[in-house]
Protein backbone atom coordinates (compact mmCIF):
# COMPACT_ATOMS: atom_id res chain seq x y z
CA UNK A 1 0.00 0.00 0.00
CA UNK A 2 1.63 3.26 -1.14
CA UNK A 3 -0.75 6.15 -1.70
CA UNK A 4 -4.52 5.70 -1.82
CA UNK A 5 -7.68 7.71 -2.47
CA UNK A 6 -10.88 8.33 -0.58
CA UNK A 7 -13.48 6.54 -2.71
CA UNK A 8 -16.25 8.76 -4.09
CA UNK A 9 -19.39 7.18 -5.59
CA UNK A 10 -18.87 9.10 -8.87
CA UNK A 11 -15.42 7.49 -9.23
CA UNK A 12 -16.56 3.93 -8.67
CA UNK A 13 -15.94 2.66 -12.22
CA UNK A 14 -12.60 4.48 -12.52
CA UNK A 15 -11.51 3.05 -9.17
CA UNK A 16 -12.44 -0.48 -10.26
CA UNK A 17 -10.39 -0.07 -13.45
CA UNK A 18 -7.41 1.69 -11.81
CA UNK A 19 -4.21 -0.33 -12.30
CA UNK A 20 -1.76 2.00 -10.51
CA UNK A 21 0.73 -0.05 -8.50
CA UNK A 22 0.25 0.07 -4.72
CA UNK A 23 -3.15 1.80 -5.09
CA UNK A 24 -5.74 1.40 -2.33
CA UNK A 25 -9.04 3.01 -1.36
CA UNK A 26 -10.55 4.31 1.85
CA UNK A 27 -14.25 4.73 2.68
CA UNK A 28 -16.16 6.13 5.63
CA UNK A 29 -17.44 2.98 7.31
CA UNK A 30 -20.79 4.63 8.14
CA UNK A 31 -21.82 4.74 4.47
CA UNK A 32 -21.65 0.95 4.34
CA UNK A 33 -23.14 -0.05 7.71
CA UNK A 34 -26.28 -1.38 6.05
CA UNK A 35 -27.93 -4.80 5.99
CA UNK A 36 -27.54 -5.40 2.26
CA UNK A 37 -27.99 -3.94 -1.20
CA UNK A 38 -25.90 -2.20 -3.85
CA UNK A 39 -23.62 -0.26 -1.50
CA UNK A 40 -22.15 -3.41 -0.01
CA UNK A 41 -21.92 -5.12 -3.39
CA UNK A 42 -20.09 -2.09 -4.83
CA UNK A 43 -17.63 -2.07 -1.93
CA UNK A 44 -17.00 -5.80 -2.29
CA UNK A 45 -16.27 -5.27 -5.99
CA UNK A 46 -13.61 -2.65 -5.11
CA UNK A 47 -12.22 -4.90 -2.40
CA UNK A 48 -11.86 -7.73 -4.93
CA UNK A 49 -9.26 -5.69 -6.85
CA UNK A 50 -7.74 -3.23 -4.33
CA UNK A 51 -6.77 -3.13 -0.65
CA UNK A 52 -9.37 -1.27 1.40
CA UNK A 53 -9.26 0.95 4.48
CA UNK A 54 -12.33 1.51 6.70
CA UNK A 55 -12.32 4.95 8.29
CA UNK A 56 -14.95 5.42 11.01
CA UNK A 57 -16.30 8.87 11.80
CA UNK A 58 -19.00 8.29 14.42
CA UNK A 59 -17.86 5.76 17.01
CA UNK A 60 -17.35 8.63 19.50
CA UNK A 61 -14.35 7.12 21.29
CA UNK A 62 -13.90 10.27 23.41
CA UNK A 63 -17.55 10.43 24.47
CA UNK A 64 -17.98 9.96 28.23
CA UNK A 65 -20.39 7.09 27.65
CA UNK A 66 -20.23 3.42 26.73
CA UNK A 67 -19.94 2.82 23.00
CA UNK A 68 -23.06 2.16 20.93
CA UNK A 69 -22.92 -1.63 20.82
CA UNK A 70 -25.31 -1.86 17.84
CA UNK A 71 -22.98 0.40 15.87
CA UNK A 72 -19.94 -1.63 16.95
CA UNK A 73 -21.69 -4.84 15.92
CA UNK A 74 -22.45 -3.45 12.46
CA UNK A 75 -18.84 -2.23 12.10
CA UNK A 76 -17.59 -5.63 13.17
CA UNK A 77 -19.78 -7.34 10.54
CA UNK A 78 -18.42 -4.99 7.85
CA UNK A 79 -14.82 -5.69 8.91
CA UNK A 80 -15.47 -9.44 8.64
CA UNK A 81 -17.12 -8.95 5.27
CA UNK A 82 -14.49 -6.84 3.47
CA UNK A 83 -11.34 -7.71 5.50
CA UNK A 84 -9.82 -4.22 5.26
CA UNK A 85 -6.06 -3.67 5.42
CA UNK A 86 -6.57 -0.70 7.76
CA UNK A 87 -9.30 0.33 10.23
CA UNK A 88 -9.25 3.76 11.85
CA UNK A 89 -11.25 6.18 14.02
CA UNK A 90 -10.72 9.60 15.60
CA UNK A 91 -9.52 11.09 18.86
CA UNK A 92 -12.87 12.86 19.16
CA UNK A 93 -16.46 12.42 20.23
CA UNK A 94 -19.78 12.89 18.43
CA UNK A 95 -22.47 10.94 20.32
CA UNK A 96 -24.09 12.33 23.45
CA UNK A 97 -27.31 11.32 25.24
CA UNK A 98 -28.79 9.73 22.14
CA UNK A 99 -27.81 12.53 19.75
CA UNK A 100 -25.25 11.86 17.01
CA UNK A 101 -23.54 15.06 15.94
CA UNK A 102 -21.99 14.71 12.47
CA UNK A 103 -18.66 16.26 13.45
CA UNK A 104 -15.46 15.38 15.31
CA UNK A 105 -15.68 17.31 18.57
CA UNK A 106 -12.85 18.36 20.90
CA UNK A 107 -12.53 17.69 24.64
CA UNK A 108 -10.16 18.45 27.55
CA UNK A 109 -7.39 15.84 27.49
CA UNK A 110 -7.76 15.00 31.19
CA UNK A 111 -6.90 11.79 33.03
CA UNK A 112 -10.64 11.11 33.18
CA UNK A 113 -10.85 11.37 29.38
CA UNK A 114 -7.79 9.16 29.00
CA UNK A 115 -9.34 6.37 31.10
CA UNK A 116 -12.59 6.57 29.15
CA UNK A 117 -10.91 6.50 25.73
CA UNK A 118 -8.59 3.65 26.71
CA UNK A 119 -11.63 1.64 27.73
CA UNK A 120 -13.49 2.52 24.49
CA UNK A 121 -10.49 1.61 22.29
CA UNK A 122 -10.10 -1.68 24.20
CA UNK A 123 -13.79 -2.43 23.60
CA UNK A 124 -13.47 -1.58 19.90
CA UNK A 125 -10.34 -3.63 19.30
CA UNK A 126 -11.80 -6.59 21.11
CA UNK A 127 -15.11 -6.38 19.18
CA UNK A 128 -13.32 -6.10 15.83
CA UNK A 129 -10.63 -8.61 16.74
CA UNK A 130 -7.93 -6.32 15.41
CA UNK A 131 -5.83 -3.22 16.02
CA UNK A 132 -7.34 0.15 15.05
CA UNK A 133 -5.52 3.41 14.26
CA UNK A 134 -6.53 6.65 16.00
CA UNK A 135 -6.41 9.94 14.08
CA UNK A 136 -5.44 13.38 15.40
CA UNK A 137 -8.39 15.74 14.69
CA UNK A 138 -8.35 19.37 13.50
CA UNK A 139 -8.61 21.95 16.28
CA UNK A 140 -10.39 25.29 16.19
CA UNK A 141 -11.05 26.11 19.87
CA UNK A 142 -8.97 26.90 22.92
CA UNK A 143 -10.13 24.54 25.65
CA UNK A 144 -9.30 24.65 29.35
CA UNK A 145 -8.50 21.60 31.42
CA UNK A 146 -5.88 19.78 29.34
CA UNK A 147 -3.67 17.62 31.58
CA UNK A 148 -1.87 16.17 28.54
CA UNK A 149 -0.57 17.61 25.31
CA UNK A 150 -1.94 15.81 22.26
CA UNK A 151 1.19 13.83 21.42
CA UNK A 152 1.67 12.69 25.02
CA UNK A 153 -1.99 11.67 25.12
CA UNK A 154 -1.74 9.67 21.87
CA UNK A 155 1.47 7.95 23.05
CA UNK A 156 -0.27 6.95 26.27
CA UNK A 157 -3.22 5.52 24.29
CA UNK A 158 -0.75 3.46 22.23
CA UNK A 159 1.03 2.27 25.38
CA UNK A 160 -2.18 1.24 27.15
CA UNK A 161 -4.20 -0.22 24.26
CA UNK A 162 -1.69 -1.22 21.59
CA UNK A 163 -3.60 0.88 19.04
CA UNK A 164 -1.88 2.42 16.01
CA UNK A 165 -1.96 6.08 15.01
CA UNK A 166 -3.26 7.76 11.88
CA UNK A 167 -1.40 11.03 11.40
CA UNK A 168 -3.30 13.66 9.42
CA UNK A 169 -0.70 16.21 8.33
CA UNK A 170 -3.27 18.74 7.15
CA UNK A 171 -5.04 18.53 10.54
CA UNK A 172 -1.72 19.28 12.24
CA UNK A 173 -1.15 22.30 9.99
CA UNK A 174 -4.72 23.64 10.38
CA UNK A 175 -4.55 23.20 14.17
CA UNK A 176 -1.10 24.80 14.38
CA UNK A 177 -2.42 27.90 12.64
CA UNK A 178 -5.64 28.04 14.65
CA UNK A 179 -4.11 27.38 18.08
CA UNK A 180 -0.70 28.96 17.48
CA UNK A 181 1.93 26.21 17.64
CA UNK A 182 4.66 25.10 15.25
CA UNK A 183 3.54 22.29 12.94
CA UNK A 184 7.05 21.05 12.14
CA UNK A 185 7.93 20.79 15.85
CA UNK A 186 4.73 18.82 16.45
CA UNK A 187 5.46 16.43 13.57
CA UNK A 188 9.08 15.96 14.68
CA UNK A 189 7.84 14.85 18.12
CA UNK A 190 5.16 12.49 16.80
CA UNK A 191 5.86 8.82 17.57
CA UNK A 192 6.70 7.63 14.06
CA UNK A 193 6.90 3.94 14.99
CA UNK A 194 3.16 3.96 15.86
CA UNK A 195 2.02 5.63 12.62
CA UNK A 196 0.26 3.11 10.38
CA UNK A 197 -1.33 5.59 7.97
CA UNK A 198 -1.00 9.22 6.91
CA UNK A 199 -3.81 11.51 5.69
CA UNK A 200 -3.36 14.48 3.36
CA UNK A 201 -6.14 16.91 2.43
CA UNK A 202 -6.80 20.49 1.41
CA UNK A 203 -8.00 23.28 3.69
CA UNK A 204 -9.57 26.72 3.19
CA UNK A 205 -9.64 29.99 5.07
CA UNK A 206 -12.82 30.71 7.04
CA UNK A 207 -15.19 32.78 4.87
CA UNK A 208 -15.82 35.25 7.71
CA UNK A 209 -12.51 35.36 9.59
CA UNK A 210 -10.08 34.74 6.73
CA UNK A 211 -6.57 33.37 7.21
CA UNK A 212 -6.75 33.64 11.00
CA UNK A 213 -9.03 30.59 11.05
CA UNK A 214 -8.30 27.68 8.71
CA UNK A 215 -10.98 25.09 8.07
CA UNK A 216 -10.18 21.42 7.43
CA UNK A 217 -12.58 21.49 4.48
CA UNK A 218 -11.31 18.62 2.27
CA UNK A 219 -12.56 20.61 -0.72
CA UNK A 220 -9.32 21.83 -2.31
CA UNK A 221 -5.98 20.46 -3.51
CA UNK A 222 -3.37 19.79 -0.82
CA UNK A 223 -1.53 23.03 0.00
CA UNK A 224 2.21 23.34 -0.82
CA UNK A 225 3.00 23.96 2.87
CA UNK A 226 1.31 20.66 3.76
CA UNK A 227 3.31 18.83 1.06
CA UNK A 228 6.44 20.30 2.62
CA UNK A 229 5.48 19.02 6.07
CA UNK A 230 4.65 15.59 4.58
CA UNK A 231 8.08 15.38 2.93
CA UNK A 232 9.77 16.23 6.21
CA UNK A 233 7.66 13.62 8.04
CA UNK A 234 8.27 10.66 5.73
CA UNK A 235 11.97 11.46 5.48
CA UNK A 236 12.06 10.93 9.25
CA UNK A 237 9.63 8.02 9.76
CA UNK A 238 9.83 6.23 6.40
CA UNK A 239 7.23 4.86 4.02
CA UNK A 240 3.61 4.73 5.24
CA UNK A 241 0.32 4.24 3.37
CA UNK A 242 -0.78 7.78 2.51
CA UNK A 243 -4.36 8.78 1.74
CA UNK A 244 -5.45 11.71 -0.41
CA UNK A 245 -8.81 12.88 1.00
CA UNK A 246 -11.25 14.96 -1.03
CA UNK A 247 -14.89 15.33 0.00
CA UNK A 248 -16.01 18.61 -1.63
CA UNK A 249 -15.47 20.15 -5.10
CA UNK A 250 -14.56 16.61 -6.16
CA UNK A 251 -12.57 16.81 -9.42
CA UNK A 252 -12.09 14.11 -12.08
CA UNK A 253 -10.56 10.85 -10.87
CA UNK A 254 -7.34 11.50 -12.82
CA UNK A 255 -6.78 14.81 -11.05
CA UNK A 256 -6.91 13.08 -7.66
CA UNK A 257 -4.70 10.33 -9.05
CA UNK A 258 -2.19 13.09 -9.86
CA UNK A 259 -2.03 14.08 -6.16
CA UNK A 260 -1.67 10.40 -5.33
CA UNK A 261 1.32 10.18 -7.68
CA UNK A 262 2.99 13.10 -5.91
CA UNK A 263 2.74 11.24 -2.60
CA UNK A 264 3.92 8.00 -4.21
CA UNK A 265 6.95 9.80 -5.65
CA UNK A 266 7.88 10.98 -2.15
CA UNK A 267 7.35 7.51 -0.71
CA UNK A 268 9.52 5.88 -3.38
CA UNK A 269 12.27 8.42 -2.86
CA UNK A 270 12.21 7.82 0.90
CA UNK A 271 12.07 4.06 0.33
CA UNK A 272 15.15 4.18 -1.90
CA UNK A 273 17.03 6.36 0.59
CA UNK A 274 16.37 3.94 3.43
CA UNK A 275 17.28 0.94 1.21
CA UNK A 276 20.77 2.34 0.54
CA UNK A 277 23.55 0.84 2.69
CA UNK A 278 24.80 3.34 5.21
Amino acid at each position, binding site marked *: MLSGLGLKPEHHEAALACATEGMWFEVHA*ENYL*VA*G*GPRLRGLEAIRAVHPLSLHGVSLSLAGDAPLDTAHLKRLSALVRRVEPGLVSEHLAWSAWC*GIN*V*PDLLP*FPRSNEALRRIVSNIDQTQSALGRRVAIENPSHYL*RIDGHAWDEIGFLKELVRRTGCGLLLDVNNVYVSSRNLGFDAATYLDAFPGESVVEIHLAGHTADPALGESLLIDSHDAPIAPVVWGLYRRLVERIGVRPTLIERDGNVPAFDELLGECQLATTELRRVGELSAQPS
Partner: protein
Amino acid sequence: MSASLAGFQSDFVKSLFDRDAKSELTIQPAFAVYRNTVMSACVDALQANFPSVARLVGVDWFRAAAATHVRVQPPRDGRLLMYGETFADFLAGFAPARDLRYLPGVARLDRLWIEAHTAADAIVVDSGWLASLSPEQLGAVRLRPHPAARWCLFDDLPIYSIWGANRVGIDTTEETVWQGEGALLTRPFDAVGWQALDPSGGAFLDACAEGRSLAEAAGAALNVHPDFDIADLLSRLLCAGALTRPTPNEESPA
Protein backbone atom coordinates in the same frame (compact mmCIF):
# COMPACT_ATOMS: atom_id res chain seq x y z
CA MET B 1 -17.98 25.32 32.34
CA SER B 2 -18.21 22.03 34.25
CA ALA B 3 -14.94 20.32 35.00
CA SER B 4 -16.08 16.78 34.20
CA LEU B 5 -15.94 15.29 30.72
CA ALA B 6 -19.68 14.59 30.86
CA GLY B 7 -20.43 18.18 31.87
CA PHE B 8 -18.23 19.53 29.10
CA GLN B 9 -19.99 17.36 26.54
CA SER B 10 -23.51 18.25 27.74
CA ASP B 11 -22.74 21.97 27.50
CA PHE B 12 -21.08 21.56 24.10
CA VAL B 13 -24.02 19.73 22.52
CA LYS B 14 -26.54 22.19 23.99
CA SER B 15 -24.52 25.10 22.56
CA LEU B 16 -24.33 23.50 19.12
CA PHE B 17 -28.09 23.53 18.63
CA ASP B 18 -28.96 26.58 20.73
CA ARG B 19 -27.63 29.63 18.88
CA ASP B 20 -28.17 31.85 21.91
CA ALA B 21 -26.12 29.72 24.33
CA LYS B 22 -23.20 31.67 25.85
CA SER B 23 -20.09 30.11 27.39
CA GLU B 24 -16.29 30.35 27.37
CA LEU B 25 -16.37 28.18 24.26
CA THR B 26 -19.17 29.83 22.33
CA ILE B 27 -17.69 33.33 22.71
CA GLN B 28 -14.73 32.15 20.59
CA PRO B 29 -15.54 32.90 16.92
CA ALA B 30 -14.26 29.41 16.04
CA PHE B 31 -17.24 27.84 17.80
CA ALA B 32 -19.22 28.84 14.72
CA VAL B 33 -17.15 26.34 12.73
CA TYR B 34 -18.72 23.50 14.73
CA ARG B 35 -22.23 24.99 14.56
CA ASN B 36 -21.94 25.50 10.79
CA THR B 37 -20.38 22.12 10.07
CA VAL B 38 -23.00 20.26 12.09
CA MET B 39 -25.95 22.16 10.64
CA SER B 40 -24.81 21.92 7.03
CA ALA B 41 -23.97 18.20 7.33
CA CYS B 42 -27.45 17.51 8.76
CA VAL B 43 -29.27 19.63 6.17
CA ASP B 44 -27.19 18.15 3.32
CA ALA B 45 -28.12 14.68 4.55
CA LEU B 46 -31.85 15.51 4.59
CA GLN B 47 -31.61 17.02 1.11
CA ALA B 48 -29.89 13.86 -0.16
CA ASN B 49 -32.38 11.57 1.59
CA PHE B 50 -35.54 13.47 0.51
CA PRO B 51 -34.88 14.46 -3.12
CA SER B 52 -38.55 14.40 -4.17
CA VAL B 53 -39.56 16.74 -1.35
CA ALA B 54 -36.65 19.07 -2.21
CA ARG B 55 -37.67 19.14 -5.89
CA LEU B 56 -41.28 19.97 -5.03
CA VAL B 57 -40.57 22.87 -2.68
CA GLY B 58 -37.27 24.16 -4.10
CA VAL B 59 -33.86 24.07 -2.46
CA ASP B 60 -34.15 27.28 -0.40
CA TRP B 61 -37.50 26.37 1.14
CA PHE B 62 -36.31 22.81 1.73
CA ARG B 63 -33.09 23.84 3.48
CA ALA B 64 -34.91 26.30 5.72
CA ALA B 65 -37.47 23.65 6.72
CA ALA B 66 -34.70 21.06 7.16
CA ALA B 67 -32.75 23.39 9.47
CA THR B 68 -35.86 23.76 11.66
CA HIS B 69 -36.19 19.97 11.76
CA VAL B 70 -32.49 19.53 12.68
CA ARG B 71 -32.95 21.75 15.77
CA VAL B 72 -35.97 19.72 16.92
CA GLN B 73 -34.77 16.27 15.89
CA PRO B 74 -30.99 16.06 15.46
CA PRO B 75 -29.61 12.74 14.13
CA ARG B 76 -29.88 9.80 16.50
CA ASP B 77 -27.68 7.51 14.41
CA GLY B 78 -24.10 7.96 13.20
CA ARG B 79 -25.19 6.96 9.71
CA LEU B 80 -26.46 10.15 8.02
CA LEU B 81 -27.76 7.91 5.25
CA MET B 82 -30.47 6.90 7.73
CA TYR B 83 -31.26 10.43 8.97
CA GLY B 84 -34.81 11.72 8.64
CA GLU B 85 -36.84 8.88 10.13
CA THR B 86 -39.29 11.46 11.59
CA PHE B 87 -39.04 14.07 8.82
CA ALA B 88 -42.41 13.15 7.28
CA ASP B 89 -44.14 13.58 10.67
CA PHE B 90 -42.34 16.87 11.15
CA LEU B 91 -43.61 18.15 7.78
CA ALA B 92 -47.16 17.08 8.70
CA GLY B 93 -47.04 19.49 11.66
CA PHE B 94 -44.94 22.24 10.02
CA ALA B 95 -47.15 25.32 9.68
CA PRO B 96 -45.54 26.74 6.49
CA ALA B 97 -46.30 23.40 4.76
CA ARG B 98 -49.99 23.40 5.77
CA ASP B 99 -51.24 24.00 2.21
CA LEU B 100 -48.93 21.34 0.75
CA ARG B 101 -51.01 18.41 2.02
CA TYR B 102 -49.15 15.90 -0.15
CA LEU B 103 -45.71 16.79 1.25
CA PRO B 104 -45.62 14.42 4.28
CA GLY B 105 -46.71 11.50 2.07
CA VAL B 106 -44.02 12.28 -0.49
CA ALA B 107 -41.48 12.40 2.35
CA ARG B 108 -42.73 9.02 3.57
CA LEU B 109 -42.02 7.47 0.15
CA ASP B 110 -38.54 9.04 -0.01
CA ARG B 111 -37.94 7.45 3.38
CA LEU B 112 -39.22 4.06 2.19
CA TRP B 113 -36.81 4.33 -0.76
CA ILE B 114 -33.87 4.60 1.69
CA GLU B 115 -35.20 1.63 3.66
CA ALA B 116 -35.52 -0.45 0.48
CA HIS B 117 -32.06 0.65 -0.72
CA THR B 118 -30.32 -0.46 2.50
CA ALA B 119 -32.38 -3.51 3.52
CA ALA B 120 -31.03 -7.05 3.68
CA ASP B 121 -30.73 -9.13 0.53
CA ALA B 122 -32.86 -12.24 0.01
CA ILE B 123 -33.73 -14.66 -2.75
CA VAL B 124 -37.03 -13.79 -4.39
CA VAL B 125 -39.77 -16.35 -5.00
CA ASP B 126 -39.77 -17.55 -8.57
CA SER B 127 -42.92 -18.53 -10.36
CA GLY B 128 -41.51 -21.97 -11.23
CA TRP B 129 -41.28 -22.91 -7.56
CA LEU B 130 -44.82 -21.67 -6.88
CA ALA B 131 -46.13 -23.60 -9.90
CA SER B 132 -44.56 -26.80 -8.56
CA LEU B 133 -46.77 -26.71 -5.45
CA SER B 134 -50.01 -28.70 -5.27
CA PRO B 135 -53.20 -26.62 -4.81
CA GLU B 136 -53.28 -27.59 -1.09
CA GLN B 137 -49.63 -26.63 -0.62
CA LEU B 138 -50.18 -23.39 -2.52
CA GLY B 139 -53.04 -22.31 -0.26
CA ALA B 140 -51.06 -23.13 2.87
CA VAL B 141 -47.71 -21.63 1.84
CA ARG B 142 -46.63 -18.62 3.89
CA LEU B 143 -44.85 -16.25 1.52
CA ARG B 144 -42.95 -13.41 3.20
CA PRO B 145 -42.47 -9.90 1.89
CA HIS B 146 -38.88 -9.52 0.65
CA PRO B 147 -36.76 -7.65 3.29
CA ALA B 148 -36.45 -4.70 0.88
CA ALA B 149 -40.17 -4.51 -0.01
CA ARG B 150 -42.01 -1.47 1.38
CA TRP B 151 -45.59 -0.42 0.76
CA CYS B 152 -47.86 2.36 1.86
CA LEU B 153 -51.46 3.40 1.09
CA PHE B 154 -52.64 7.02 1.03
CA ASP B 155 -56.35 7.62 1.59
CA ASP B 156 -57.21 10.71 -0.39
CA LEU B 157 -54.19 12.03 -2.28
CA PRO B 158 -52.30 10.87 -5.41
CA ILE B 159 -49.04 10.65 -3.45
CA TYR B 160 -47.63 7.84 -5.58
CA SER B 161 -48.03 9.82 -8.82
CA ILE B 162 -46.59 13.02 -7.33
CA TRP B 163 -43.67 11.20 -5.69
CA GLY B 164 -42.90 8.97 -8.70
CA ALA B 165 -42.73 11.93 -11.09
CA ASN B 166 -40.56 14.08 -8.83
CA ARG B 167 -38.30 11.18 -7.93
CA VAL B 168 -37.22 10.97 -11.57
CA GLY B 169 -37.14 14.75 -12.02
CA ILE B 170 -40.36 15.44 -13.95
CA ASP B 171 -43.51 17.39 -13.13
CA THR B 172 -46.87 15.72 -12.57
CA THR B 173 -49.25 16.04 -15.50
CA GLU B 174 -52.70 17.61 -15.48
CA GLU B 175 -54.12 14.11 -15.88
CA THR B 176 -53.21 13.23 -12.29
CA VAL B 177 -56.47 12.18 -10.65
CA TRP B 178 -56.87 13.74 -7.21
CA GLN B 179 -57.68 10.53 -5.32
CA GLY B 180 -56.04 8.09 -2.92
CA GLU B 181 -53.15 5.92 -4.15
CA GLY B 182 -50.78 3.31 -2.80
CA ALA B 183 -47.18 2.52 -3.63
CA LEU B 184 -45.01 -0.57 -3.56
CA LEU B 185 -41.21 -0.22 -3.55
CA THR B 186 -39.01 -3.26 -4.16
CA ARG B 187 -35.31 -3.95 -4.52
CA PRO B 188 -34.82 -7.58 -5.56
CA PHE B 189 -31.17 -6.89 -6.48
CA ASP B 190 -29.45 -3.49 -6.81
CA ALA B 191 -31.99 -0.96 -8.08
CA VAL B 192 -35.08 0.20 -6.19
CA GLY B 193 -38.19 -0.06 -8.40
CA TRP B 194 -41.76 1.02 -7.71
CA GLN B 195 -45.33 0.55 -8.84
CA ALA B 196 -48.83 1.56 -7.82
CA LEU B 197 -50.54 -0.63 -5.23
CA ASP B 198 -54.27 -0.75 -4.57
CA PRO B 199 -55.80 -1.31 -1.10
CA SER B 200 -56.44 -5.02 -1.72
CA GLY B 201 -52.77 -5.48 -2.68
CA GLY B 202 -51.81 -3.64 0.51
CA ALA B 203 -54.05 -5.92 2.58
CA PHE B 204 -52.49 -8.97 0.89
CA LEU B 205 -48.92 -7.83 1.72
CA ASP B 206 -49.90 -6.88 5.30
CA ALA B 207 -51.26 -10.42 5.78
CA CYS B 208 -48.06 -11.96 4.34
CA ALA B 209 -46.00 -9.79 6.71
CA GLU B 210 -48.08 -11.11 9.62
CA GLY B 211 -47.08 -14.65 8.60
CA ARG B 212 -50.46 -15.68 7.21
CA SER B 213 -50.90 -18.33 4.51
CA LEU B 214 -51.51 -17.49 0.88
CA ALA B 215 -55.18 -18.50 1.25
CA GLU B 216 -55.59 -16.22 4.28
CA ALA B 217 -53.79 -13.34 2.57
CA ALA B 218 -56.04 -13.73 -0.49
CA GLY B 219 -59.05 -13.68 1.87
CA ALA B 220 -57.84 -10.45 3.45
CA ALA B 221 -57.50 -8.88 -0.02
CA LEU B 222 -60.99 -10.08 -1.03
CA ASN B 223 -62.41 -8.45 2.10
CA VAL B 224 -61.12 -5.10 0.82
CA HIS B 225 -62.26 -5.61 -2.76
CA PRO B 226 -64.61 -8.42 -3.88
CA ASP B 227 -63.25 -8.24 -7.46
CA PHE B 228 -59.69 -8.83 -6.27
CA ASP B 229 -57.69 -10.86 -8.84
CA ILE B 230 -55.16 -13.01 -6.98
CA ALA B 231 -53.45 -14.30 -10.17
CA ASP B 232 -52.85 -10.78 -11.44
CA LEU B 233 -51.52 -9.51 -8.09
CA LEU B 234 -49.25 -12.53 -7.55
CA SER B 235 -47.78 -12.19 -11.00
CA ARG B 236 -47.05 -8.49 -10.42
CA LEU B 237 -45.52 -9.16 -6.98
CA LEU B 238 -43.33 -11.97 -8.35
CA CYS B 239 -42.22 -9.79 -11.25
CA ALA B 240 -41.30 -6.97 -8.87
CA GLY B 241 -39.41 -9.29 -6.52
CA ALA B 242 -41.68 -8.36 -3.62
CA LEU B 243 -41.87 -11.82 -2.07
CA THR B 244 -39.42 -14.26 -0.59
CA ARG B 245 -39.78 -17.91 0.35
CA PRO B 246 -40.88 -18.97 3.80
CA THR B 247 -38.19 -20.08 6.25
CA PRO B 248 -37.22 -23.76 5.70
CA ASN B 249 -39.28 -25.19 8.57
CA GLU B 250 -42.40 -23.61 7.03
CA GLU B 251 -41.59 -24.71 3.50
CA SER B 252 -43.42 -28.05 3.61
CA PRO B 253 -47.00 -27.21 4.49
CA ALA B 254 -48.78 -30.04 6.31
